[in-house]
């Protein structure tokens, strides 16, 4: 096992180079990639923390929580970054998180009150389509149209679950009717966001479930204004991404420092063009151009995180029944 010895040696070398204590942050995979916010956030935080910030990436938000539950109180993690409002109730139930006093002048469309989790960015779910398309104005019109859509499976992906909550928040008990009408519009259901968005770009559908901020990527990174998001008049469901400190952290003060850092200008200004979401606190410089022409929903929908688990189970059964016919 020469390789192992080598790997161990390199690891020791890296930690020897970095000075100060190590702060371990569990997050989802796309956060740590070189195109994600990870590298810039790490550099900005390490510039004044006299510590070594280490991101550990794993799957998506749900995978993150599953991993944490497996590790339990023995987890090496000090911070978990990347859960969303749908997962908060389940996360709190584990009893692994510590309360926080960090707060900020959030520019969220709703009031944020949570003593455990701190929001760092957010977005609206939306159906993205080609700018030429005459898009429907709500789920009913979509259900009556011949338009083809691709969505994600709520059993394996957070956007998929978001859509479930969206229909439920907008239509309540009438959600099964909406799903029944949408059934013939759904080309297919994918495991995750990447597959769905990829299929849409290959022309497999007219619209795909994504975020209102997705067109900003195409405008800013590709100078391509051909994509836009459909404005739905029943309102758009929100996804708020949060971070929390673990009660078992051995770097309590440093963890608090990082939580506070995530809502400062230095971190928030990184997020729009790396995570392609809205920052939780509007940076002083405002949003980058490309974010100014995005669809702005009239109404922000969000089911309180404590109610999510019960509603999720009911909505999932409705969804399965409607689409399995």
């Amino acid at each position: 096992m020469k390789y192992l010895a080598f790997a161990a040696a390199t690891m020791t070398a890296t930690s020897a180079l970095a000075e100060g204590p190590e702060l371990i942050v569990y997050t989802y995979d796309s956060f740590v990639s070189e195109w994600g916010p990870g590298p810039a956030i790490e550099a900005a935080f390490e510039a004044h923390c006299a510590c070594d910030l280490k991101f550990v990436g794993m799957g998506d938000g749900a995978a993150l929580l599953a991993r944490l539950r497996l590790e339990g109180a023995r987890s090496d993690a000090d911070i978990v970054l990347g859960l969303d409002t749908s997962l908060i109730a389940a996360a709190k139930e584990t009893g692994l998180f510590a309360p926080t006093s960090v707060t900020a002048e959030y520019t969220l469309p709703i009031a944020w009150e949570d003593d455990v989790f701190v929001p760092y960015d957010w977005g609206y779910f939306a159906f993205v389509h080609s700018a030429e398309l005459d898009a429907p104005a709500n789920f009913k019109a979509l259900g009556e149209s011949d338009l083809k859509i691709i969505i994600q499976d709520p059993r394996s992906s957070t956007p998929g679950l978001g859509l479930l909550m969206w229909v439920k928040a907008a239509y309540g008990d009438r959600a099964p009717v909406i799903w029944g009408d949408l059934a013939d519009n759904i080309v297919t259901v994918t495991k995750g966001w990447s597959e769905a968005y990829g299929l849409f770009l290959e022309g497999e559908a007219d619209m795909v479930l994504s975020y209102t901020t997705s067109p900003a990527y195409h405008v800013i990174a590709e100078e391509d204004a051909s994509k836009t998001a459909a404005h739905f008049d029943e309102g758009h469901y929100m996804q708020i991404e949060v971070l929390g400190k673990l009660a078992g952290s051995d770097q309590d003060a440093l963890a608090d420092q990082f939580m506070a850092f995530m809502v400062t200008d230095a971190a928030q200004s990184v997020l729009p063009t790396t995570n392609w979401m809205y920052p939780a606190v509007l940076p002083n410089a405002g949003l980058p151009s490309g974010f100014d022409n995005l669809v702005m929903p009239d109404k922000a929908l969000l089911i309180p995180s404590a109610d999510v688990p019960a509603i999720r189970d009911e909505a999932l059964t409705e969804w399965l029944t409607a689409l399995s016919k």
Partner: protein
Amino acid sequence: MVDRTFQVTPRAGAGAAALLVGLVLAALVGVFSRAEVGAGLSAPDWAAIRFTVLQAALSAVLSVGLAIPVARALARRRFVGREILVTLLGAPFILPVIVAVFGLLAVFGRSGWVNSLLSAFGLPDVSIYGFHGVVLAHVFFNLPLATRLLLQGWTTIPAERFRLAAQLRLSPRVIARTIERPMLSQVVPGALALVFVICLTSFAVALTLGGGPRATTVELAIYQAFHFDFDLGRAALLSLVQLVLAGGMAVLALRFVPEITVGGGLDRPLRRWDAKGGLQRLMDGLLITLAAAFLLLPLAAVVLRGLNGLPEMPGSVYLAAGNSLMVALLSVLVMLALALPMAGWIATRAKGGMEAISLLGLAASPLMIGTGWFVLINPLVSPAALALPVTAMVNAMMALPFAIRVLVPPMREIMQQYGRLSVTLGLHGRSLWRWVIVPRLRPQIGFAAGLTGALSMGDLGVIALFADQDRVTLPLQMYRLMGAYRMDAAAGAAVLLLGLSLGVFWICDKGGRWRAET
């Protein structure tokens, strides 16, 4: 009959099999140890089980059924580009699932080539999404594998028999009955079991092409139990169902493998004097062309789509490619260390049922294996520190059934032909392997190594739980590009991955078949 006193690596073989069983059981125990008592299987679970078995059975029958004429055509024809075609046949199978799905959709999708052609002639569109789409995709993945397995079967038929058939001017029908059918009865059941098990654990393909929750497989239910419900009891129960289904099918299929009683040949390279004819030749040509088009067009689509993206790939993609190559190499070594003794052990047993053990690693849900081991390892060492050996082990376990399937039939043949001679000459242990087994098994060892290497290249770090942050593999990097909207660069990475996987496969396969006929 196999001489019962003659055995090859009985201890090492049984040891490897025991290790395999132990590792899978350990994972299951690990998951159960953390499970709370939960409800049994729900109605949707039963629906998922029904769908899974149905699609897997149909996919297996179609893949192997279609592979028989294709392999026969390839076995009796020699043409320019045949060797490249035989290598490319390995490609669909070793592609990462998502890449293959995109390739298939470029051909059969809503705005794919087939529908463009249809609409050019004013014909209505065809939709790939649905049960037929799932089966089509699984045939795309497994037809080439089945073809290669059967083709190997044809090459184990001693050349003298075909020469004799040609001298006696036997008709193709008589050849089929007297020479080919006995060989097929040896090879087909194992191939069926293998394809069935591969399709059993399908998840993303079935969901994406199945068009919705109707196409829910057991693997998806396991994923949901682990990820969204964190219901470990249900996850373990479903994993157990999957193992039982796979094991049951394997035992059932392998029961039908008869013992061979025909004598051996002189180990000559195969030449086919018997198959010259006109109409037959035309049909063979047509079959090969159709199969090649079905398999290669989606691959061509992947390559065409990715060429533009190649320059857009960041340097980290190449670094990831290096990591993947290393994982592949290690996986091949582990696989050989397990597969060779196991094949020797299984081949010298009277009944082939033990081969079912090799299917365990493939039939077990990778999520279950990963989680189970994680639960057991985590209290002792940091799982990330074991990322490389664990990944290599899991890859080797998943590739093992292919290796065993490829190695056992010729191994059995070798034992029958040379077993007594070897005993008389006092050949055993290393010298037996060196002089008798390896020279004759070289093509199969090469093929198995190539398959393992390529599969490991394309594998998405079976278990994210053990992921090593500093050593990202190529498929993971490709996924990250997709997750960051960079679809063009991701398509480029897919081409690189396809190229490297095929390269690894080709080197091993070619190395094995060097100066040997296929």
